[in-house]
Every structure is written in structure tokens, then in C-alpha cells.
């Protein structure tokens, strides 16, 4: 927005519009001829990446909302059926859920870039504050979105976060009642969160427009922090910035697609595959990863009100950054001390995030307190102090000078050393902690699964045998309520024909009705029916099983997990290991032991299981050798049964897994080619500008 545009469209129809609404001129001056500093690096592409992510989130979200039911009794099921039955529903859901995380990845990089290069300084204060408002809106939107699937973590996350407001003196309780629409988190809460979750992204889009407007008034900052003086300092937005942003977006999409297609549940919590239960608190409530540093600050302050103030203060303090840091030099590139403290600050944030995910006890609490002090000290002590005592290096006269000088000296090694040091430090601190945490719990042994890895497929034989084991053993107590008989004939499943699935269904009795006389009746199952549950309701299941209701098995391999600890969770990202659930289920089935080890007491009516948390399980040993006959000559051992039924349960938890991995491979080939194309086009476009 560099003054009135002199753009004149050549097409008479466009001229007609332009005279009445100069929107084309606005677009032209904002996104085509708009001068952008020629020394911008790739950290500046995250603005475009964020706009792209906002678009993706709104688009996928609108379609998801068409299939979602915002009701406490139906929400969980509607999300599950959306994933199973809607065309590419699994893709939409993964894109939206992973997209939220990717949105935050991008926004954190974007914010840290602003922090490092001093993009909040005069004349960009309003631009920065608008950015903080967008970030706050994003946090609210992300939180409410996480509540919508109505799993255990959704419900209890909502309970904990809404209770934060009860800390406010005098009006706290009434605010919480307003948020809930009742006496506790329940159906009215879900409804209002759904409404707000739909509204807020459009508010974000509105503030983004203001953000871009403010940006185009003050102009972009740049890595050297000197304002453009002559035309030699800038290049036109299109094609230079456009093509560079396209390349940045393509690279970011590679990371995004890695999660969507290969590890969609890596960033989520297994507990959220358990439907919300207001009567049971999960043993360990953890918010989504992007809130963890603030959650750590909340927990490290022992007073409730002070903790809440600390948590919100940690975000609000960003608004005052332009005045806390009064240094004249913008870019940390020329501020030797500020640069080092910046990387320490990044390490503090990462460590706080790690602590936010740990149980609030012992060393973690003390470390959390120390790091909370460090976090605030960076803003309240370090930055104000540095602006007075630091002696910055000389800043180049102009951007073109900086670009010319760049060929000689490079400052990157310094930065990368700092990153390496920060990472190494956090790795070391983390490994000490996790070594303590993993003591005393039995880790399920890893297995070789046919469905693991980027090209994994279900072993059809194992699926068919597993179905037999489920039908003859597990089904007497456990339901499989999200799986329909028709699924047995679908691609990527056990490989039965439609007729075989129909025959299988007809062996079941299904309750239907009411008929004309108003009575319920039983009839033979049809392919469209779902596996009938062995008990009429949860209370009946509980009463028949000594107080412990046998869980539904449809999602069990996704709803169970175990802690991988540090550094395994980082290794898992690269190896695509995500079979914690299957490993746990298979280990549990084989983990029954008659001899109870010393020091473990098993109450009456429970059984010892090596891998069950707490070791006392209500389920008696379900499988023994030779119990189920196999027609295909596979060994009839407990180990084989466990493997087969776990494979079957993995399929029932995610029937479209094969389609997901197959499409993922195609998308990756496309994205790599696209990114390559963009890279070489960008090189060509920028050939004269470097």
C-alpha cells in the first residue's frame, strides 16, 4: 500500500469495476508491485505459510462441521463415523487436527523471527500487538476445537481450563457458569464452544487483514534491520516474494503431510480416543503441546490466582515488548549479547514445554519454577538492561550494502552453534529426567507389525484369524460398536467378499423396532448393522464384571499407549513408530502371570498382569493355547492369537490406514517435485537480485 495505485486494467469490464471499486488496484499495489526488502531470508516466508494454514483450517473446518454433531452424547461417535464413512473423512480430520499443530509451529517460528530481528520496534508496534491478538485468538480457537471430539482429554482439558477463570476474585464463579451454561462442563458447554470455534477463525481472518494492512503501511522489517532507502534496496513482491513464499509453503507442506499421512496421532493424546466420562479423571491431564510452556508456568506457581496471572501474563507481556526493549538497533544480528540471550530464551521455552508434559512432582516443580523466573526475567530484566549496556556492532548503511557485504562474511555459523548448544543442553537435561521417569514400569516389548512403516499393509490372514479370535473369545464381554459388518468387505480390510460379509452378519441377532405393534423384535444381522454389544449399557457391563466395565474395542489400539520418554519420542518422529497401542494390547494379552511378584498385592477378584498399569486387572487371562482353531495351519498359541487379534483391532481402529499410507506416498512424490520446481523457478527469478 504505497500510495494510490496507478494500475489500469486493460479489459473494459475490469475498467468498469475498477472505476467503481478499485479493488484490483488495491490487490495490485499490495501484492504485485509492493516493494519488499531484497535481503529477506526464508524465515520471512512464514507469514505466507500462516495465511495458507488459516485457509486450510477454515476450508477443512467448514466441511467437517457439515458432518459433526455438537451434542454430548453424539459428538464422539459423529467424529468417529466421519473418519470411517465420509469420503476422505479421515483425510479431512487429519488435515484439521494436524493443521492446528502446524499452525502453531508456524506461528512460533514467525514470533521468534520477529523477536530475533526486532520486528516489533518503531514503527511496527501496532503490527506486533495485532500479531499478539491473533495469537491469543488462535489459542482460544485451538482449545475450543480440541474440546469438540468430546474425548476424555477434551472433557478434562475443558474442565481444567474453564476452572482457571474461577481464580478471578468476586466474579470468577459467575464467569465459569457463563462458560459452562450449567453447573459443570456438559452439553451446553459443548454447544457454545462449537459456535465460538466456528466464529473465531473468521475474527482471526479479520485481524490478519489488519495485520497485513499495518505491515504494508510500515513496510517489512528485514534481517539487517535498516529501512529501505532507495529502489535498489527492494524488489517487487511479485514475482520475487510470491515465488519464494510458494517454495517455503511447499517445504512446509512436506512436514505437514508427514504428520497427516504417516503419524496423524503423534501430536495427540491416546486418552482422547476414550469417550468423555465426567466420573473419571484421567491420571495425567496434559494440554496440547502448544500450550505446554504456559501450562508449566501455571503449575509452577503454588498459589492458584498467582498461577493464572502468571500464565496469562506470560502472553500479555509480549504486548509491551516494543517498550521493554528500547535498543535502537533492531536486528540481533548486530547485537552480540541480545543474540545469545535470545537463544537461551528459546531453550527456556522448549524446556518449559517439556516440563508442562511431566507430572507435577519433585524435580520437575523446582525446574519449572527456575525456568518461569528465567522466562519473565528475559522480558523484564535482560531486554531493558541490554538496551542500556550493550554495544551493538555497526549496522550497514543500506540494504544493498548488506547484501553486497554478505558474500564475504557469514554470520550463520555463530547462530547454528547457539542452536546446537541449546538443543544439546535440553537433550541432556531431558535425558536425566526421563531416565528417572521410566524406572519401575514395564515397557511392552516392541513387535514387528505388518502394518507399520510408510508402506505397511494389514496381513489379510491375520485380520481374518483375529476376527475369529474376537468373535469366539473377546466378544463375550467386549463390544466393537463402531465396526459394521459391511466394513469386513471393504478395501484394506480382512478381504472378505460382500456375500461373505452378509453371511457373517446373518449369524448375529440384532435388535430392531419398534414394529407396527410397537414392540422391539430381533432379526438376523444385515451388512449395514454394527457389531452388537454384549451388554445393554455400561451399568450392566459393570455389574456383570465385578465393577469394571470391559471397554469397547473399536478404538482400543488408538486409545491405549505408553510413555516412550525422552529421547525416544524424537526418534519416533523419524522412524514413524506409532505402534504403542498395538504393542501394549498384545503385551497385555500375554502379560498374565500366575505367580504374583513380591511387593505387589492383588485385591480379591483381580488378576496380576505385568503390563497393566498398577498390575491388578479385573479381566481374567482370556487366551490359552489351542483355544481357538485356525483353518489355515497357523500355530494356535497365545502369542499368535495376541498378534492376530491385535492386528484385527488395529484395523478396526483405523479401517482406512492402507488408503492413508498409499495416498501419502503419492502426495509426497507430488510435493517433492513441486518444491523442486518452485526452488529452481525462484533461483531464476532472483538471479539478478542477489
Amino acid at each position, binding site marked *: 500500500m504505497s500510495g494510490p495505485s496507478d494500475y489500469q486494467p486493460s479489459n473494459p469490464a475490469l475498467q468498469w469495476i475498477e472505476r467503481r471499486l478499485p479493488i484490483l488496484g488495491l490487490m495490485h499495489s499490495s501484492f504485485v508491485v509492493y516493494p519488499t526488502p531484497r535481503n529477506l531470508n526464508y524465515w520471512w516466508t512464514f507469514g505466507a505459510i500462516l495465511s495458507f494454514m488459516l485457509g486450510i483450517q477454515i476450508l477443512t473446518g467448514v466441511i467437517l462441521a457439515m458432518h459433526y454433531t455438537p451434542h454430548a452424547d453424539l459428538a464422539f461417535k459423529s467424529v468417529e463415523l466421519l473418519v470411517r464413512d465420509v469420503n476422505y473423512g479421515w483425510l479431512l480430520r487429519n488435515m484439521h487436527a494436524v493443521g492446528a499443530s502446524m499452525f502453531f509451529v508456524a506461528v512460533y517460528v514467525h514470533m521468534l523471527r520477529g523477536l530475533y530481528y526486532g520486528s516489533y520496534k518503531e514503527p511496527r508496534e501496532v503490527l506486533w500487538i495485532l500479531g499478539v491478538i491473533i495469537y491469543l485468538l488462535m489459542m482460544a480457537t485451538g482449545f475450543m476445537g480440541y474440546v469438540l471430539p468430546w474425548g476424555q482429554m477434551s472433557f478434562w482439558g475443558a474442565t481444567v481450563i474453564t*476452572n482457571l477463570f474461577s481464580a478471578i476474585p468476586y466474579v470468577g464463579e459467575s464467569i465459569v457458569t457463563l462458560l459452562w451454561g450449567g*453447573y459443570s462442563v456438559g452439553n451446553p458447554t459443548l454447544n457454545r464452544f462449537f459456535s465460538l470455534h466456528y466464529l473465531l477463525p473468521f475474527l482471526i481472518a479479520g485481524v490478519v487483514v489488519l495485520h497485513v494492512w499495518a505491515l504494508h503501511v510500515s513496510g517489512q522489517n528485514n534481517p539487517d534491520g535498516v529501512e529501505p532507502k532507495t529502489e535498489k534496496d527492494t524488489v517487487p513482491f511479485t514475482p520475487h516474494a510470491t515465488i519464494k513464499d510458494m517454495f517455503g509453503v511447499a517445504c512446509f507442506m512436506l512436514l505437514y503431510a508427514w504428520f497427516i499421512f504417516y503419524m496423524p496421532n503423534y501430536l495427540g493424546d491416546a486418552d482422547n480416543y476414550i469417550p468423555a466420562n465426567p466420573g473419571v479423571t484421567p491420571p495425567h491431564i496434559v494440554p496440547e503441546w502448544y500450550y505446554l510452556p504456559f501450562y508449566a508456568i501455571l*503449575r509452577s506457581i503454588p498459589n492458584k490466582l498467582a498461577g493464572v496471572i502468571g500464565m496469562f501474563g506470560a502472553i500479555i507481556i509480549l504486548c509491551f515488548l516494543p517498550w521493554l526493549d528500547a535498543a535502537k538497533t533492531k536486528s540481533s544480528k548486530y547485537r552480540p549479547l541480545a543474540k545469545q540471550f535470545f537463544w537461551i530464551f528459546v531453550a527456556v521455552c522448549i524446556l518449559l514445554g517439556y516440563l508442562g508434559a511431566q507430572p507435577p512432582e519433585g524435580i520437575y516443580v523446582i525446574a519449572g519454577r527456575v525456568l518461569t523466573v528465567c522466562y519473565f526475567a528475559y522480558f523484564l530484566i535482560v531486554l531493558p538492561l541490554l538496551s542500556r549496556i550493550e554495544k551493538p556492532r555497526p549496522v550497514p548503511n543500506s540494504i544493498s550494502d548488506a547484501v553486497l557485504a554478505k558474500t564475504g562474511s557469514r554470520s550463520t555459523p555463530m547462530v547454528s552453534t547457539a542452536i546446537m548448544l541449546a538443543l544439546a543442553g535440553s537433550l541432556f537435561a531431558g535425558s536425566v529426567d526421563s531416565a528417572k521417569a521410566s524406572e519401575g514400569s514395564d515397557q511392552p516389548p516392541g513387535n514387528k507389525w505388518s502394518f507399520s512403516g510408510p508402506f505397511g499393509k494389514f496381513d489379510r490372514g491375520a485380520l481374518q484369524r483375529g476376527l475369529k479370535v474376537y468373535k469366539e473369545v473377546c466378544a463375550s464381554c467386549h463390544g466393537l460398536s463402531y465396526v459394521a459388518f459391511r466394513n469386513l468387505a471393504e478395501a484394506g480390510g480382512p478381504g472378505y467378499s460382500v456375500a461373505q460379509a452378509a453371511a457373517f452378519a446373518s449369524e448375529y441377532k440384532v435388535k430392531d423396532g419398534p414394529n407396527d405393534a410397537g414392540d422391539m423384535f430381533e432379526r438376523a444381522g444385515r451388512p449395514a448393522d454394527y457389531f452388537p454389544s454384549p451388554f445393554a449399557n455400561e451399568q450392566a457391563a459393570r455389574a456383570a464384571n465385578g465393577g469394571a466395565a470391559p471397554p469397547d474395542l473399536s478404538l482400543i489400539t488408538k486409545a491405549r499407549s505408553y510413555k516412550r520418554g525422552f529421547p525416544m519420542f524424537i526418534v519416533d518422529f523419524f522412524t514413524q513408530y506409532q505402534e504403542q497401542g498395538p504393542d501394549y494390547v498384545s503385551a497385555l494379552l500375554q502379560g498374565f502371570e500366575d505367580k504374583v511378584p513380591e511387593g505387589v498385592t492383588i485385591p480379591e477378584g483381580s488378576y496380576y498382569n505385568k503390563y497393566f498399569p498398577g498390575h491388578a486387572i479385573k479381566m481374567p487371562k482370556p487366551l490359552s493355547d489351542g483355544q481357538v482353531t485356525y483353518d489355515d495351519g497357523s500355530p494356535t498359541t497365545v502369542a499368535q492369537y495376541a498378534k492376530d487379534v491385535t492386528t484385527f483391532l488395529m484395523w478396526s481402529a483405523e479401517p482406512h490406514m492402507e488408503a492413508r499410507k498409499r495416498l501419502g506416498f503419492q502426495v509426497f512424490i507430488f510435493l517433492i517435485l513441486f518444491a523442486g520446481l518452485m526452488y529452481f523457478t525462484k533461483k531464476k527469478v532472483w538471479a539478478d537480485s542477489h
Partner: protein
Amino acid sequence: MNPDASTIAAGAPIEVDLSPVAEGQDIKVFWRGKPIYISHRTKKQIDEARAVNVASLPDPQSDEARVKSGHEQWLVVIGICTHLGCIPIAHEGNYDGFFCPCHGSQYDSSGRIRQGPAPANLPVPPYQFVSDTKIQIG
């Protein structure tokens, strides 16, 4: 945005029959979507709750003020941790009372906060005895 009429109507008082709850046992009922713990306390639990120096508690309140006189064995509290709203587990922790698994708050056999980040005791809901073995909550 305050609770609608049906929500308020559903929050009407409920009656709970105490006769099946043996000494040392406790039951959990839901009222207004909140879990209410009703504990049939043992002699030991009552004595422990009364032996404490009330002034030394983070949220000073005597056990007598938290139960109905003549029905000292019955403790009725809202089972929602006053820290951030998780549900504490009964018969756990160091004080023969409740333990919250979320952030480690511990309550004693009178539902009073003894340790951890929670600022206040477990609240006692409005209730009265309609007979010796039946209470009305609300």
C-alpha cells in the same frame, strides 16, 4: 448465556438412600453434573478429622462444621478438586481422605485441603437428613 430453564430444572434436589453404604465405604452420586461423595466414615477417620488443630489448616474449618450433628459418620462433599476441577480419588493420599491425581492435592477425612496447590476445602453441598438413612441433596 446463563443456564437455561431445563438445566436449572434438572438441578432440582435429589434424595439418596444411605442404608446400603457400609462403614468405611463411600458412594458417588451425581447432582447438577457434579460428583458428590458420600462417605460412611469409620471411627478412626472421625477421630483423625477432629484431632487436627484447626488453626493450622490452610482453609481453617472444624470437622463439626462440615457434617450434621448427630450424623457425624456421614461426610457429604462435592468431589471436585478446588484447584482446577479434577475428581479426587477417595481413600487415597496421606490423610485418609481424598487425593487428586491431576496436580497432587490431598484432602483429609473431612474433605479439608491438607497439602498441594488447591486453595480451599472440598465444598459441602446443601443437604439435610430426611430420615436417619436418607438425605436430600440440594
